[in-house]
């Protein structure tokens, strides 16, 4: 199955990167779910919370307040000045 390649980056380091099955993020327009094969997209995160469904089905959450969210060719980048995995 196709999978997403996710990286969470903050200004001073790459917080996390790895493969994932699905990503759910809340943008300023509303919640959006991303699966592999999604069209390229650039969005502003509103609450900054992003839920990442790992390949084994567990869910991890990244916090990225005032951050961005970009999707292209199954590469997802979540970036913010301060980002962390919770």
């Amino acid at each position: 199955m196709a999978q997403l390649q996710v990286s969470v980056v903050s200004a001073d380091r790459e917080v996390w990167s790895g493969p994932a099955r699905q990503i759910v993020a809340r943008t300023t327009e509303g919640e959006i779910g991303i699966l592999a094969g999604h069209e390229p997209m650039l969005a502003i995160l509103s609450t900054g919370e992003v839920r990442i469904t790992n390949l084994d089905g567990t869910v991890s959450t990244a916090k990225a307040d005032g951050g961005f969210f970009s999707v292209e060719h199954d590469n997802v980048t979540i970036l913010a000045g301060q980002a962390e995995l919770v």
Partner: protein
Amino acid sequence: MGAQLRVYRQKIKSAQTTKKITRAMELIAASRIQKAQQRVAASAPYSRAVTRAVSAVATFSNVEHILTTEPEKIERAAIVIFSSDRGLAGAFNANVLREAEELAALLRSEGKDVVYFLVGRKAVGYFGFRQRKWEREWTGGTDQPEFATAQEIGQALVERFVQPASEGGVDEIHIVYNRFVSMMTQVPEVVRLLPLEVVEGVEEPGEHEILPLYEFEPEVDAVLDALLPVYIESRLFNAMLQSAASKHAATQKAMKSASDNADALIRDYTRLANNARQAEITQQISEIVGGADALSSAN
């Protein structure tokens, strides 16, 4: 002991203690370069991602945005100077300040007003001594730059940039900092930050890679509004990190040559001290021989 010899020994002692200090500072700087370089490397994914996003927005949408459009007439330009808080770094601060002066002269010759934003105590001292005015200063954190400081500087700059020129706003922003090339070389560099020359930062797409057509959420304008300050902050943060790494490298170099000079001084003074000691001994011998002669001839 002869007075001359004592003076030489004092000088040797003093050179030795100075050398201990400079050697210690050299080692400290050397260990800090490593850390500073790692921080520059660690911040690379972020600035790459931001640059990519900005390139995407700028290339695939022909939006007119205040931060990207060139104003018709530029009345006032701002220069941000990244210096260090401490000296003892050779020509580090002199270089960056000279570069800034040249840039200011160039801008003035084009009929623009120049306002300064200073980072680091050395730049503040330089301007204070010459009784020149500056807009704002950020001091105390040049050795280990914090991203929060970059955000603060970015906010202050964008704020001034969006103000109309008649109310004291600036139309152009330049940054001057030392770029870290290698342990041996640091080059002062001038970059125009605003209006953005995104072209310069655009990543060349690889052969099989085309920058995709993005979908924007909410709108292109809003995304650009939010993205550009972030881009500026990331550029500023990068300049701060580069400057910090350069500062440590410059300190290490300066302290190494100071230690070498101390070595040379110690060697020279040791030779002189040896000379003085031998001269003293020779004199003592001739005094004794002379005395003995005088005694024997008196008998």
